[in-house]
């Protein structure tokens, strides 16, 4: 990996069934995610996906690129910028910003983001990982 390299992208269709699956898997039953009537009265006009569910796509591209190094040494700092609604497709992308050799390993810093099919940035931030040199 070198500066400027792109990580393999992940595409994901977000639907209400998956949001409800995530609520059960995570234990987060905030009605903004799963209660259609409650959510219709919110500023979003309907349900939205859990931020952590969408952020999982970033972890997926980091795992795909760096394997178990991500689980052992990964670091991520993200902001949730706009909601993802059922029916939208999201794309998680990453690109290498910096590679810092350190002895027998290298620290790789990546810019990461998740965008929706209507062009909104849902998540942006940075992820980094240490890999053997």
């Amino acid at each position, binding site marked *: 990996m070198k500066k400027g390299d792109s990580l393999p992208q992940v595409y994901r269709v977000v639907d209400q069934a998956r949001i409800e699956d995530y609520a059960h898997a995570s234990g987060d039953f905030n009605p903004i995610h799963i209660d259609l009537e409650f959510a219709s009265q919110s500023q979003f006009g309907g349900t939205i996906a859990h931020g952590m569910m969408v952020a999982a796509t970033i*972890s997926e591209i980091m795992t795909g690129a760096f394997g178990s190094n991500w689980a052992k040494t990964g670091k991520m700092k993200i902001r949730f910028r706009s909601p993802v609604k059922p029916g939208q497709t999201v794309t998680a992308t990453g690109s290498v910003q910096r590679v810092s050799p350190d002895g027998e390993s290298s620290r790789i810093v990546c810019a990461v983001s998740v965008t929706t099919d209507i062009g909104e940035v849902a998540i942006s931030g940075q992820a980094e990982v240490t890999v053997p040199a």
Partner: protein
Amino acid sequence: MVTDYGDLQPGQEISRHSYQVDEGLVADYVAAVQDENPPLRDSDGVQLVPAMAVAALSIRGVVQDLRIPGGTLHAGQEFEFMSAVAVGSSLDCAATLVQNSVRGNWRFLVIDCHVTDDNAADVMSGKSTIMIPAGLGPRETK
């Protein structure tokens, strides 16, 4: 049990839970996020838990114990993973309030999360920033 978010003080432990990360829990998580990566395994072939499944567990207790009301938003998240977790491990997830402030119509809670394994070794640390509508308190439990 918290009844008014204004009473929460920085430094206060707000949640602590232990979880057994079994195959079922991991399978449910992977299915929900539709992760298409093959399962990670350590050098002995033991299946590893996806990193974000650990992260999700780290805030599960916070959501439950604070009885986060509808309309709450997740504004930001930081994670640092220190070691991989084998499927079947037990994890201890603790959360401590770092900041409690009101800006405009929102209350901002910044929460440190820390996860350790069966051997008390650090697995993950993180920081969550959540925004709660300022006028709302914890939701009623059934």
